[in-house]
């Protein structure tokens, strides 16, 4: 039986009070400079305070009580330091309401940038994973394939994909396609290497077992080699996702004229730092969501493994 831990009430109660206090000080203490959306921000804080209060009976939410409190303190202190006392230099540091203002006024553009980034990321990543997987299986399985693929992989694989960037953007007219290729390249190397080592490391007795029951090579690849190598494939896919995030930002800052990276570049040009923070926030949410999704898929496919970490 699973043991249910009852989470304490007080952190969330104090948290709700802290959000209420943040709302109050935002609204009642006058701003040190001209900041937009101060009242709206106070209302948002009030809303969070009310939500925290009414979700108090939920054991699951109470687990995060301390986080609710910590965030309230963080936002409250930030509000006082920047909006009320103006202790940090503008425009590099914004106030919380400025960030809110960006989301309210510029949401369409942000959403559009997010969509572009996701398209570039998902397309390039999936393409790279498929290519890497096929190369890895080929190298693990066929000597002839390995003869040709191994030196190429050794020669080109360790090259940082960024090195291709100037060339690709010059040669390929569509910067989107160039970005996709770059991303695919970044993803394919780790997936290929790990798939290959996974397949090479399959316990040979597994093949013997299947062979004595009449299995042909196709069955051995599909139902023995690949499932046995899958844990390795996923390690490769995690590494690939990380390097795709990296490539995404670089590509969007240096060539692709859309997406969150481009938006940030643009924000910097206009010294619109709150916009940059907003884009950063969205990017963090996007990256962590993709990671979470990949972990979910992995845990589903590898549920036979005894030990698996939680993301």
């Amino acid at each position, binding site marked *: 039986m699973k043991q249910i831990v009852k989470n304490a009430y007080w952190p969330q109660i104090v948290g709700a009070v802290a959000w209420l206090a943040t709302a109050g000080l935002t609204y009642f203490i006058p701003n040190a400079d001209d900041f937009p959306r101060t009242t709206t921000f106070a209302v948002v804080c009030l809303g969070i305070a009310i939500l925290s209060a009414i979700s108090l009976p939920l054991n699951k939410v109470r687990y995060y009580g301390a986080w609710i409190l910590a965030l309230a303190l963080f936002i409250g202190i930030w509000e006082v330091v920047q909006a009320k006392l103006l202790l940090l230099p503008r425009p590099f540091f914004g106030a919380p309401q400025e960030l809110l203002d960006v989301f309210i006024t510029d949401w369409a553009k942000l959403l559009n940038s997010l969509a572009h980034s996701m398209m570039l990321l998902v397309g390039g990543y999936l393409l790279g994973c498929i290519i890497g997987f096929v190369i890895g299986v080929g190298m693990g399985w066929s000597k002839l394939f390995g003869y040709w693929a191994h030196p190429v992989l050794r020669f080109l694989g360790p090259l940082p994909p960024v090195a291709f960037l100037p060339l690709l953007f010059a040669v390929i007219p569509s910067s989107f396609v160039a970005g996709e290729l770059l991303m695919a390249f970044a993803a394919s190397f780790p997936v290929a290497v790990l798939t290959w080592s996974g397949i090479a490391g399959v*316990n040979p*007795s*597994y093949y*013997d*077992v*299947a*062979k*004595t*029951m*009449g*299995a042909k090579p196709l*069955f051995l690849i599909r*139902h*023995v080699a690949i*499932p*046995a190598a*899958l844990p390795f494939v996923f390690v490769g896919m995690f590494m690939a996702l990380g390097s795709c995030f990296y490539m995404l930002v670089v590509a969007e800052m240096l060539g692709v004229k859309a997406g969150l990276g481009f938006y940030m570049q643009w924000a910097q040009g206009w010294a619109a730092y709150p916009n940059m923070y907003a884009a950063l926030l969205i990017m963090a949410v996007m990256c962590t969501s993709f990671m979470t999704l990949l972990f979910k898929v992995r845990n589903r496919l*590898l*549920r*036979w*493994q*005894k030990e698996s970490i939680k993301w």
Partner: protein
Amino acid sequence: MVDSLVKQQKIEITNVSHSYSLDDHDLPVLEEIDLTIEPNEFVVILGPSGCGKSTLLRMVAGLERPEQGSIKANGEEIIAADPSRIVVFQDPTLFPWLTVRQNVELGFKIQKKKDDKAISDMLEMIGLAGFDNAYPSQLSGGMAQRVALARALVNDPSVLILDEPLGKLDSLTRITMQKELVNLWRNKQFTGLMVTHDIEEALLLATRIIVMRQRPAHIIGEFKLDMDYPRHRDSEELLKIRREIFGLLGHKSDW
């Protein structure tokens, strides 16, 4: 290729020698093995650890070819593995990504057959009904060994090759499984070829016991056992053979 529908197989091992290379030097493993196994025999091989028993079994299964000599089934050279000769390996080697049921079903999946009842009956027989959906990582060593046995038996092989299949079982389960093996063998009419470390087990199961010497393996003794089943481990006849085998294996005073 031997037709898998041929129920009876006569295995002829003639003058088989084999060596592996280990660290640049030759390691002779089998030396001039001659052994004929008639259909429906239950032959048990005894010999010191590392002498080459598993190697010989792999060759009969068609997983490896001998350097010298020939191994034939019904007069045809064994050149590849065939589902008519199924092996239960020394390690259970269950596929960790398949459930117990899917593991037992492996042979059917390969041969594109479907028979849910046969699988259920088999799981019942090995005492693992209710563990259908467990993964191998959730089984004990003995349970895994039993699943491996079931995975082989459902295929209804004409030759069942057993490499210490009961090695990991506790002594009580072992006795049960030995009885089950005898029953299965008598009902299903397969030819049994088994390796074990346990002289007692050999005496209870075999119609013929083959004793091998330390590497390179060579047959140094052969005993025909024509007593009825179930046998009693303290019967005079068995004790006599047991003493002789101990002697052959160099433990004359240890029995």
